């Protein structure tokens, strides 16, 4: 779930970021509105909207699909701002050097800007990854048998709240601590050629 949502978010985030820095107004303006709408509303509302409102327009999704899509879109919007910042942080001279060598805008983005921006955005992207993992709990509210949801069921069944929620807590921590360690490893890995 987390990985699927992150995959959608990464792809969507990159597309939105590129759209938002486009010189074409017809592309830039709607993308900016979309990103601000998503960032300005709660994830839970977006999930409900996708699952309960979209069927009215003929788009009926399974709970898992809706959850993936909701998380992907929500995190995509946030990540697009991270990516946009990363792209802007690559020095202007890099773009000029590439252009003066005759490279097209697309080649400059692909070979020069994005590889450098990518290293800049790894730490914040990793943080989003970890928090997306935690947000998958929200998805249980649209009836996915998620950890929290299952925990709730068992707890209300057995009244052993402390034990059940402690177990849920431990499961979360056991998964998310290695995840954030993984993020740190990724950071080091991708920073190597620059650090030398």
């Amino acid at each position, binding site marked *: 779930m987390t990985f699927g949502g992150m995959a959608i978010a990464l792809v969507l985030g990159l597309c939105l970021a590129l759209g938002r820095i486009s010189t074409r107004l017809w592309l830039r303006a709607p993308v900016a509105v979309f990103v601000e709408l998503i960032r300005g509303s709660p994830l839970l509302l977006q999930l409900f909207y996708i699952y309960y409102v979209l069927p009215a327009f003929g788009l009926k999704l399974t709970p898992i699909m809706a959850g993936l899509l909701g998380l992907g879109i929500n995190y995509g919007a946030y990540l697009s701002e991270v990516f946009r910042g990363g792209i802007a942080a690559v020095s202007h001279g890099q773009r000029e*050097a590439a252009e003066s*060598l005759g490279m*097209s805008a697309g080649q400059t983005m692909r070979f020069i800007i994005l590889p*450098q921006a990518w290293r800049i955005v790894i730490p914040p992207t990793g943080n989003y990854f970890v928090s997306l993992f935690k947000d998958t709990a929200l998805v249980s509210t649209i009836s996915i048998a998620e950890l929290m949801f299952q925990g709730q069921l068992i707890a209300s069944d057995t009244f052993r709240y402390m034990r059940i929620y402690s177990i849920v807590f431990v499961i979360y921590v056991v998964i998310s601590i290695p995840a954030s360690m993984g993020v740190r490893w990724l950071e080091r890995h991708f920073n190597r050629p620059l650090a030398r």
Partner: protein
Amino acid sequence: MAAPIIEVKSLSKSYGVVQVLKEVSLAIGKGEVVVVIGASGSGKSTFIRCINGLETFQGGSILVDGYALTPEGRGRRSNVADLKEIRREVGMVFQQFNLFPHKTVLENVTLAPIQVRKWDRKKAETAARSLLERVGLRDQMHKFPGQLSGGQQQRVAIARSLAMEPRVILFDEPTSALDPEMVGEVLEVMRGLARDGMTMIVVTHEMGFAREVADRVVYIDHGRILEQGPPAAIFDAPQEERTRAFLSRVLKH
């Protein structure tokens, strides 16, 4: 002078209300080395950045080997196809080197020939090796730019520019960001290029280099070409009062 390879006519450029270039005209012959001097903010860097389209302009025209750059229209460039050709023919070396930090020295030099000129890797690497040999850095080609000194980085940048086999190279204060002891090695490479007949426009504060290597020295003052001529004429017998004042400031030390 040989047939001009670059013809700049009445070039005017403003940033908002500030006019930085006022009707600048200059023709540069094939194989000519032109050194542009002037105070900071005189417009000399802006001038050469217009020639390869890094800056747009509002008036006049630029012709490079038959390809034309025209003033910007309503927020749009008019001549995308010509700009592309001009960028293939005109190389540029920057004050801050602007090497690609995530690529090795060799990759810095081969990237554009492979992507823009569609050379195969082998051909591009063979050419890159001999260019790196020429700038004296063949043994450094698997390092990253961050591992090199400033002077070495600038020599790589020159090799990177040469890899596209340009007909003209623009130098935008190529030694201004270097420690003094590294200036010489970069100027030496540039001298070699001039000897081999490369057409060069060099913005610099290195007056010794200008006197020795330039075919022509152009003095830009407040966005205008105030005076130009052979180095001996400009340095030893400047006609304009402002040229004299500028030279006495920069030659004092």
